[in-house]
């Protein structure tokens, strides 16, 4: 029991550290990829290839002058970025980062908490995340912040529905709400994306909207709203908001990879490697490769597409994705009935 607790705390710390590290280097990757897509070179002065740039940025963020507007609600002003950061870090707990490692006869799962309602937990925590933005925007006492916050919350609420419905279809086929089980079920190339292509499409579009990334980055649309909900923020509080966006992106990529692309599973790899521990580690590596691909996809899309107009965004969410998601559920149900999975 005691070793279990120690092991879990170590794992939680490791996930925490890795998440922060990857989010940090996502900022670097974002700038590099943006530059490359635009025929530029990107940051290359701090260290070889600019590899120390995130550190320099972090130091800059910490050293900057801290400003809290006189007219703001101080408690909520500080609470905003804290919630944003907290919720996005909490989501990492239910992702299976690998199968399990056996040390001295004890099996250790590479998932911090395999709760049987993992998906619900995920959806719940991410929807709390919107409070961080809303509280921050409201507490700033600034019309641009407030508008940004309103946009963010209405956008996230609208797209959460499409996301939830696309997941319902997935749950129908997998028959479980536990993310660990969903990942394990996809063993041997039975990736869910082959069974739920439409669901995957809806899910990834909603994931873009949920993370407030382009082409759905209306909450922080510079041309209309200065900085959106974080207009009044400075120093590391602003850093927290920006950082939370990158962590969200990382977690979304992890969720997409786990739910639809087999998680830590890789077909045929079991034929070459027998040792279960090595297999588990290689599985984790594969998972991270998939995650990195999706992070790249997020950035690739961002630097390709212009921003949607707000009415287009709402149209797409309510009149496009929502009916499609319902249709997807219906089709899934019919196919399952015909193939005899349900009766």
């Amino acid at each position: 029991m005691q070793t279990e607790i120690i092991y879990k705390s170590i794992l939680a710390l490791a996930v925490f550290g890795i998440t922060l590290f990857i989010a940090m280097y996502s900022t670097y990757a974002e700038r590099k990829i943006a530059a490359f897509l635009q025929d530029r070179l990107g940051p290359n002065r701090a260290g070889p290839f600019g590899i120390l740039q995130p550190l320099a940025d972090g130091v800059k963020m910490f050293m900057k002058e801290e400003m809290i507007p006189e007219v703001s609600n101080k408690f909520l002003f500080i609470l905003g970025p804290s919630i944003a950061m907290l919720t996005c870090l909490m989501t990492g707990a239910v992702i299976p980062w690998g199968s399990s490692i056996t040390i001295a006869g004890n099996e250790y799962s590479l998932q911090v908490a395999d709760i049987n309602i993992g998906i619900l937990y995920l959806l719940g925590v991410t929807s709390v995340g919107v409070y961080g933005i809303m509280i921050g925007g409201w507490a700033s006492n600034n019309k641009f912040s407030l508008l940004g916050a309103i946009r963010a919350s209405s956008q996230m609420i609208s797209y959460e529905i499409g996301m939830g419905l696309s997941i319902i279809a997935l749950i129908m086929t997998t028959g479980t709400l536990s993310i660990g089980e969903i990942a394990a079920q996809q063993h041997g190339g039975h990736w869910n994306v082959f069974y739920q292509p439409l669901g995957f499409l809806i899910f990834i579009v909603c994931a873009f909207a949920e993370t407030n990334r382009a082409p759905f980055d209306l909450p922080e649309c510079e041309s209309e709203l200065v900085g959106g909900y974080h207009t009044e923020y400075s120093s590391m509080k602003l850093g927290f908001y920006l950082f939370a966006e990158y962590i969200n992106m990382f977690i979304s990529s992890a969720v997409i990879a786990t739910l639809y692309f087999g998680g830590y599973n890789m077909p045929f790899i079991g034929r070459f490697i027998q040792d279960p521990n090595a297999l588990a580690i290689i599985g984790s590596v594969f998972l991270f490769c998939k995650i990195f691909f999706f992070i790249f996809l997020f950035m690739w899309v961002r630097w390709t597409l212009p921003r949607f107009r707000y009415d287009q965004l709402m149209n797409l969410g309510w009149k496009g994705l929502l009916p499609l998601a319902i249709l997807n559920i219906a089709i899934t149900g019919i196919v399952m009935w015909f193939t005899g999975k349900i009766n």
Partner: protein
Amino acid sequence: MQSLTNRSKVVGSTKMTLMESIYLPAILNGMMITIKHFFRKKATIQYPEVKREFAPVYRGMHVLKRDENGAERCTACGLCAVACPAEAITMTSAERKPGEEKLFREEKYASTYEINMLRCIFCGDCEDACPKESIFLTDRLVPSDSLRQRFVYGKDLLVEPMEENKRIDISKRQTKEVLEFKKNKELQHNKLIE
């Protein structure tokens, strides 16, 4: 209206077709374009290490030339100041004293000569106007500064050094056309600098 490129597209507020309202084909198309740029050669020039090549007739910071003997060529005639469209040049003239022949070529010379580099538009008209082949624009850049006053360049910065090896080379500006122009008999005073 005639379009400048063959890539222009007529846009209107017509309703989107089904294909367009799905968005995905257009998005994939766009992503293919951007990924192609990912592997392109980059246009960046790493500035302090690599410098972009200047055109031989680049018009940068001015120089006031000396003649073969090291005497200043400028005679403070003021033609450059008159020609200057930005009114960037001011000068005061003085008379040469006996014994200063080594310093000034003509009997009258510019005791002060100032160009306001913030006013100057680097058009090169001063160079064209000068009858003594004294002022030239060079391929040197005017460095940035934080004080406006420091952009008024006096003779200390404009006149080229006395030493033979530190003279500013302006031979690249003497293009074929310029040389042809200088053959004009009426412009006899435009004697070539070696």
